């Protein structure tokens, strides 16, 4: 169980205080797939990094099964947008990284890595270096690396944002398949409405000004979801309305701030 209690983040930039996040409270049930949807600059990646333990919140607390998060832990793994694979390691060594860091013996490590590479369909590429792989393949390796440490919570920071539309679609299905068979809790950050609604059990919509949670959409539609269907269309319209209100407001604010010509 992941709980966020009044999580906020403020930065001081040149003496001015910037509010990156304010008063975020969420509860995510074990095995739930939750998407964080919002325009760029709404602080959704900051929130993910706080949950990962990479940065501390200024206010509030993140708890996993009741214990406060004070840094990265064995119960969480992160999949980054630009894969963040180590170019000097083979695909297999990349997948083994988390286990090697924890001192797991080589034979066991290798076994886990090869099994996961089979799951993501890259067993034949185990000895390749990442630069031989396409973007979609790199992201599969990154997912395998995250699964290798068997985390309860999988944190994904716009993982498919850099992929082309078709690869993206394939990867979304792949992720759902993996999520079903490994029963991980997933926190998935995205700015794409369709992606959030296609994947999530719940979609949390974040606003940019102020940077807080605005609304929550519960998607009860059976998977695989028909993105051309009426129910999906209704949810999409709802999400779009919530977001465009937001975008319109921030544009208006920017226009006010600008010097008139």
């Amino acid at each position, binding site marked *: 169980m992941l709980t966020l209690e009044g999580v906020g983040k403020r930065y001081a930039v040149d003496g001015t205080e910037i509010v990156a996040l304010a008063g975020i409270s969420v509860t995510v049930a074990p095995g739930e797939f939750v998407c964080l949807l919002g325009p760029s600059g709404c602080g959704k990646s900051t929130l993910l990094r706080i949950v990962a333990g990479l940065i501390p919140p200024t206010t509030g607390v993140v708890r996993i099964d009741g214990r406060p998060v004070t840094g990265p832990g064995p119960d969480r793994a*992160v999949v980054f947008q630009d894969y963040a694979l180590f170019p*000097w390691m083979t695909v297999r060594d990349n997948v083994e990284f988390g286990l090697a860091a924890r001192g797991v013996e080589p034979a066991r490590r290798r076994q886990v890595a090869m099994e996961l590479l089979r799951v993501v369909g890259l067993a034949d590429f185990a000895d390749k270096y990442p630069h031989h792989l396409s973007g979609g393949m790199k992201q599969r390796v990154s997912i395998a690396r995250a699964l290798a440490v068997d985390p309860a919570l999988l944190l994904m920071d716009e993982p498919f944002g850099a992929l082309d539309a078709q690869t993206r679609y394939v990867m979304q299905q792949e992720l759902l398949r993996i999520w079903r068979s490994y029963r991980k809790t997933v926190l998935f950050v995205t700015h794409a409405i369709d992606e959030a609604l296609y994947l999530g059990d719940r979609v949390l919509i974040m606003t940019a000004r102020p940077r807080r949670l605005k609304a929550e959409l519960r998607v009860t539609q059976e998977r695989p979801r028909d993105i051309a269907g009426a129910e999906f269309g209704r949810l999409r319209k709802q999400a779009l309305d919530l977001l465009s209100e937001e975008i319109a407001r921030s544009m208006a604010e920017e226009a006010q701030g600008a010097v008139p010509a």
Partner: protein
Amino acid sequence: MKGAAVDQVAAGAPAVRRRLVLTREARLGLGTVVAVVVLWKLVHAAGLFPPWAFPAPEQVVAAFARTLASGELLKNAWASVQRQLVGVALAALVGIPGGLLLGASPTFRAAFLPICRLIYPIPGIAWIPLAILWFGVGFTSTVFVIFFTGIWPILFNTMAGVETLQGQYTEVARVYLAPRLFYVRKVLIPGSLPFIITGVRLTYGVGWRVIVGAEMISSITGLGFMIDDARWQLRPDIMVAGMITIALIGWVMEQWAFDWLERATIERWGMKSTRR
């Protein structure tokens, strides 16, 4: 495995072809070298300089052949190369860990970077008199001078490499709970390798350039000594033969050994060299 072998063949093939059939670039480069030699011969033939100060190209070739046959050239070249290798190795041994520490630890940087910046502008040659006082004439003092000249590029490049690496790779290491030493071995050093190799390359270059000066003053062997000694015999042909030997050895190391090292590591990983 199979893929790697294919890559090597693919990378090696054009290089082999270049050596057999000269490319346009190679013809232009070689043409200029030939033109310079011809010009040199013409200047010599015109008698603009006295013969004891200005050798003809063929005299240099003869001096080269003679010193090679007598073993004098190889003996001195080996003496220089030995000092160079030991000096560069020492600079790397101190410079790489030092650079890693300077880049990774703000405390270490605050303590040691100012003194490094202070010593850095002192030319290697300026250390020679002190080196002779401390170590006498010969191997140790020359190595000392190479070390103090060569340590800076490798130290500062390694530091820059670590600073460039901080960020996402470091975050991945944190997410997966990598212990400090594991992080240094598996992430920090390989991740900084493009900078480290460039650093060693520069160190090699400045070391090789200073060694000759050092040997002229502080040694009785080596290519620098051979060149300086030829002055007393009024033998400019031996001087130039020694200079060309220096150029050839430097060229082979800088163009071949380091290029090979880069191909074997950072190019294989698809990373970019930091040169140019």
